[in-house]
């Protein structure tokens, strides 16, 4: 059913385009009417186009963001892999040549090169001194430069084209990233720290971050044999990967031999052979323990495509609110156009133009606006996309290279075409819908400019039948949504039935009560559905929030619009002065023009709703930093990560004067699969020991009922190799968790070296994972399952009372440089994570603010047209003695009244909905977050939106004030 919607829309658009083309070619009367109405008032046509183009701009911008993310992520294939398509990793150094030979002979189809390397982790620092700089996590690489340049068929993408011969003696070649960080250049000395040893080397050259030179950066290319000399016995772990971590009791990860495989084809095209090549590689290494096949290029390109799709969806979803505002504006503009030309339309019908011809003339006029606004919108969208990319770059400029991404603005020609088609189609369908509605006019009433008669006879029967049909459809949707756990039916079923019921209820009770009953039900359901039907609403994403926003705003606007007249009584009680007269008149127009006012309220409310919603969550998460710190820290203060090749022993940390306790974790990066994520996905795993539970029990949001308390659950996992603790964010991308593991559910963990799988069951769920521990298992399981591939490289450190955790972290880094220690306070880690989250929300708010611009521009457009429409009335008011400033104030009061109502509606809806989501539902997982109103953000939003609305209305208000009564009245008489 849902799959048919795009097909039906496409058919509708094609049909409309064909009809317009036919009329343009063969129906000169329709063409003339449409074209001349567009060109009659060019300034106003420009306003219509301006008001309509933002929707297309937003759609195009979200596509461009996707293009840019996709292209930038795909470019990592060039910068980090170059000609390399697959990577064969062999633990230890002894078996590398033998396995490489087994891969080389006989040749594997579609493989055009193999390259052997040796790598290990290391810390690197400049010579000891006051300005000493260090990189705790670098990669030491041994490779034959001549062989590397010959690898693949393009030396330019290896990054080593100009690097000269393989380093010898004390020479070293380093990557540009490392050179920047250490602030070193050719001729400078650096010191390597690995496996408890250190070695000083002199930089011979600096190579760019491209291809082989960029793989695993920051890189240090050392003379052949250097790694073996540094690693000593650790170079050959006994028993391959299944050996206990390290062989020298240091817990160090052993070095590895790598074989890079280049597939036939260029940097990007070679990945198409990955499936067959990877299968052949696996066949060749079958039976060899400790060998991992990584389909690096294919995985990276798949991730790039997934990232692009995800960002397009996020920005498209957020942009949908603005697009809806744009649609409401377009409807409003067309209704105003029709009102203004009512008598003309009546005359056209009177002289013989059929209803469908009238609709087609209006539709063609709208089609011209649609095409013009879509074209202008695409151009504006390029600009909006650029701004988003610039802001997003500042968010992606992270310290952690794992998450750093260089964005390069990119757009595909197809993107612009798609943006144009989508934007123009939305406009076209909107204006045709409006035209069909407007074509149903009574000729006499139109000519005499009398209000349309209330529905009687057939129209009333039809509306009742449609109402009954709506109730049935809504009920069926609800039933289907509940039984299939499908969010759309569950969310929209009741509101559709409730909205439809209004046409029946109004026959029995007054309209005010009917609307209150129908729309009130829809409103309640929209707010509470996440609590009422949690299963059906689980895993919902942007489309659900957009649908919810539309339901809430439509219901609230209908209720407000139906009851707004109650305000008249209040306003009429105001005292009498020129000022209060402008207030009375300023209220009178929006109260009398219910449809227009509703459209404007809807435009404001839907955008403000989303902006406030985002503010609530941004504010909530920021305010919870101390709580998250308390829950995640387990009573420790500083997080210490160290180089896997030279991990810092717990004893070394304990020996530091600031430290009172240490708990250590074994870290591995295996692959996981779950029911909701069947594709093996890399995610961290931490093996904890009993000391983790000694100071304070880390908070759990859920646990197996078999455990009486959180401590029992943790201890059970520690002692049971089949149990695991995860968080709601396990295997998640950005945004709220889409699907999550619950207590008792299974997951598969895969050792990439042995390809062994193990099923674990979730014993408990953590409140969060701000330290990115990943899956938490007992250290015994980590040791037996991963062996040397799970070094004890992570620690949590408790410091003495009275010492600042950040200061202590800095001192630990300086003192344990040789171990590549990276230390930071738990609080700062959480603040950093929250800061990134907040930055992203701010970016989305900025993007969404475009929707507010649509609302404000829409109000301006409506005001401009109102001035034209009311010239005669303004003339009369001036003739009667209204001062020009009163006329001006009347328009400003009107704009302010609409803006304040719309903003207030959006704010209230967002606060109620977010409160409900946070306190009464499981939508945001099991995180316990206290609700708080972001007063500052709301005040800023309120003031800025209101001020902008008044500024946008100032020009038409001044125009109205300047109208000369005699001129205005001469137009009429």
């Amino acid at each position, binding site marked *: 059913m849902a799959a048919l919607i795009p097909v039906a829309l496409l058919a509708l658009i094609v049909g409309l385009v064909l009809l317009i083309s036919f009329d343009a070619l063969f129906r000169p009367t329709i063409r003339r009417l449409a074209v001349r109405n567009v060109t009659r008032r060019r300034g106003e046509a420009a306003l219509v186009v301006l008001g309509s183009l933002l929707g297309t701009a937003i759609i195009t911008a979200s596509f461009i963001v996707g293009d840019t993310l996709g292209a930038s992520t795909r470019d990592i294939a060039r910068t980090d892999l170059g000609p390399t398509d697959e990577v064969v990793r062999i633990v230890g150094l002894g078996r590398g040549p033998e396995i490489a030979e087994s891969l080389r002979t006989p040749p594997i189809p579609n493989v055009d090169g193999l390259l052997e390397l040796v790598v290990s982790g290391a810390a690197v620092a400049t010579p000891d001194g006051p300005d000493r700089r260090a990189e705790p996590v670098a990669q030491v690489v041994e490779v034959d430069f001549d062989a590397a340049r010959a690898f693949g068929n393009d030396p330019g993408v290896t990054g080593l084209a100009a690097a000269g011969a393989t380093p010898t003696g004390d020479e070293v070649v380093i990557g540009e990233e490392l050179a920047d960080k250490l602030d070193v250049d050719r001729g400078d000395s650096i010191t390597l720290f690995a496996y408890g040893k250190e070695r000083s080397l002199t930089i011979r050259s600096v190579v760019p971050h491209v291809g082989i030179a960029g793989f695993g950066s920051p890189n240090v290319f050392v003379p052949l044999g250097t790694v073996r000399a540094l690693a000593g016995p650790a170079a050959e772990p006994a028993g391959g990967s299944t050996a206990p971590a390290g062989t020298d009791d240091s817990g160090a990860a052993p070095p590895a031999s790598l074989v890079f495989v280049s597939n036939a084809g260029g940097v990007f095209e070679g990945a198409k052979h990955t499936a067959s090549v990877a299968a052949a590689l696996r066949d060749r290494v079958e039976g060899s323990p400790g060998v991992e096949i990584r389909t690096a290029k294919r995985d990276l390109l798949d991730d790039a495509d997934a990232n692009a799709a995800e960002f397009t969806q996020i920005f498209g979803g957020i942009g949908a609110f603005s697009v809806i505002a744009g649609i409401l504006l377009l409807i409003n503009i067309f209704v105003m156009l029709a009102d203004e030309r009512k008598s003309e339309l009546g005359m056209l019908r009177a002289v013989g133009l059929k209803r469908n011809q009238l609709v087609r003339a209006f539709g063609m006029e709208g089609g011209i606006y649609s095409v013009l606004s879509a074209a202008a919108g695409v151009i504006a969208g390029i600009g909006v996309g650029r701004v988003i990319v610039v802001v997003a770059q500042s968010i992606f400029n992270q310290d952690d290279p794992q998450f750093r991404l260089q964005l390069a603005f990119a757009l595909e020609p197809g993107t612009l075409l798609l943006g144009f088609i989508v934007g123009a189609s939305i406009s076209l369908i909107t204006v045709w819908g409006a035209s069909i509605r407007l074509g149903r006019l009574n000729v006499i009433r139109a000519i005499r*400019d*009398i*209000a349309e008669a209330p529905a009687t006879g057939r129209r009333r029967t039809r509306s009742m039948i449609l109402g009954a049909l709506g109730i049935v459809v809504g009920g069926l949707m609800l039933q289907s949504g509940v039984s299939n756990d499908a969010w759309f039916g569950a969310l929209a079923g009741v509101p559709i039935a409730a909205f439809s019921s209004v046409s029946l209820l109004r026959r029995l009770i007054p309209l005010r009560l009917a609307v209150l009953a129908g729309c009130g039900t829809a409103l309640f359901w929209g707010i509470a559905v996440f609590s009422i039907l949690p299963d059906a609403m689980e895993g919902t994403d942007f489309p659900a929030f957009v649908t919810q926003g539309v339901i809430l705003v439509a219901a609230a606007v209908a209720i407000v619009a139906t009851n707004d007249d109650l305000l008249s009584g209040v306003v*009429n*009680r105001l*005292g*009498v*002065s*020129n000022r209060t*007269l402008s207030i*009375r*008149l300023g209220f*009178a*127009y929006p*109260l*009398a*023009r219910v449809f227009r006012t509703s459209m404007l309220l809807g435009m404001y409310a839907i955008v403000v709703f989303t902006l406030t919603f985002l503010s609530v969550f941004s504010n909530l998460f920021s305010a919870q930093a101390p709580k998250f710190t308390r829950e995640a820290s387990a009573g420790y203060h500083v997080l210490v990560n160290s180089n896997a090749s030279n991990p810092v022993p717990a004893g070394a940390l304990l020996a530091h004067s600031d430290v009172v306790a240490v708990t250590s974790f074994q870290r591995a990066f295996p692959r996981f699969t779950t029911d909701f994520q069947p594709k093996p996905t890399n995610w961290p795993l931490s093996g904890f020991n009993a000391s983790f539970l000694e100071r304070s029990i880390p908070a759990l949001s859920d646990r197996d009922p078999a455990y009486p308390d959180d401590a029992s659950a943790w201890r059970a996992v520690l002692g049971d190799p089949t149990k695991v603790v995860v968080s709601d964010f396990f295997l998640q991308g950005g945004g709220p968790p889409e699907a999550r593991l619950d207590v008792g559910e299974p997951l598969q963990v895969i050792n990439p070296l042995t390809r062994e799988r193990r099923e674990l069951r979730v014993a408990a769920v953590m409140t969060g994972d701000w330290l990115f521990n990943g899956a938490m298992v007992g250290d015994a399981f980590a040791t037996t399952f991963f062996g040397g591939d799970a070094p004890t490289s992570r620690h949590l450190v408790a410091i003495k009372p009275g010492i600042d955790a950040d200061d202590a972290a800095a001192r630990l880094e300086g003192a344990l440089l040789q171990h590549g220690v990276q230390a930071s306070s738990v609080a700062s880690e959480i603040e950093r994570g929250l800061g990134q989250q907040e930055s992203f929300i701010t970016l989305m708010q900025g993007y969404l603010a475009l929707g507010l611009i649509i609302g404000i521009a829409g109000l301006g457009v409506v005001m401009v047209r109102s001035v034209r429409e009311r010239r*005669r*009335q303004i*003339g*009369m*008011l*001036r*003739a*009667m*003695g*209204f*001062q*020009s*400033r009163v006329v001006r104030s009347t328009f400003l009061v009107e704009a302010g009244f609409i803006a304040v109502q719309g903003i207030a509606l959006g704010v209230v809806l967002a606060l109620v909905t977010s409160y409900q989501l946070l306190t009464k539902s499981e939508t945001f997982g099991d995180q316990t977050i206290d609700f708080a109103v972001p007063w500052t953000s709301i005040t800023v939003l309120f003031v800025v939106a209101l001020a902008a609305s008044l500024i946008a209305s100032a020009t038409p208000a001044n125009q109205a004030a300047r109208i*000369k*009564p*005699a*001129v205005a*009245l*001469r137009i*009429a*008489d």
Partner: protein
Amino acid sequence: MAPLLDAQSVTKIYRTGVVEVPALHSVSLTIDAGEFVAVMGPSGCGKTTLLNCLSGLDDIDGGSVLVDGADIHAMSDARRTEHRANHMGFVFQSFNLIPVLSAVENVELPLLLTGTRSSTARERASAMLERVGLGHRPTHRPNELSGGEQQRVAVARALVSEPAIVWADEPTGNLDSTMATTVLDLLREVNAAGQTIVVVTHDDGIGASAQRIVRMQDGEIVGASAERLTASRKQ
């Protein structure tokens, strides 16, 4: 006794770009309090322009207009607007009611403008609606009233603040003969009560009802246009 309105050598020129179209050529006219004056003449002769200039709705290019002894074109726009609110009422061919206000709200507007208390304004507006025969439709909006009813609301609005002078521009132009008679009777009735009325019209019926006819042609008052009709003719 000084006339209520004393216009001397009023000149008005419309300018469109470089084109100048003289609309009034040094027109002089005096109107006494309580008079019912009809301004008549062919289309385009300057009748409406004369009304606009004498009432202060439009600026003039020469001459002076004294209303109740005050030179309205020497006033600032704000002062002149205030003067209009206090001394004048208007009725136009197209009624020009405010569509979003009900009949009684339209009528009370001039009172509210001059600072009358809301409750008093509502009472007087309701009474005026009664007087024009619309006491039963105070809450109806303009689009719910017939043309004749709308014009009666417009007359009520013009009269409610008891202005010194009521200006009416083709008040029966959009009405059928029955409605036109009703409105005309209304104007005659209030004039009989002492209200000064100046009507721009093509309608000979109104002309016949006026105490004085001012005839215009090509922007000038022509012929015996300033003659005062005898009381017997009026009757």
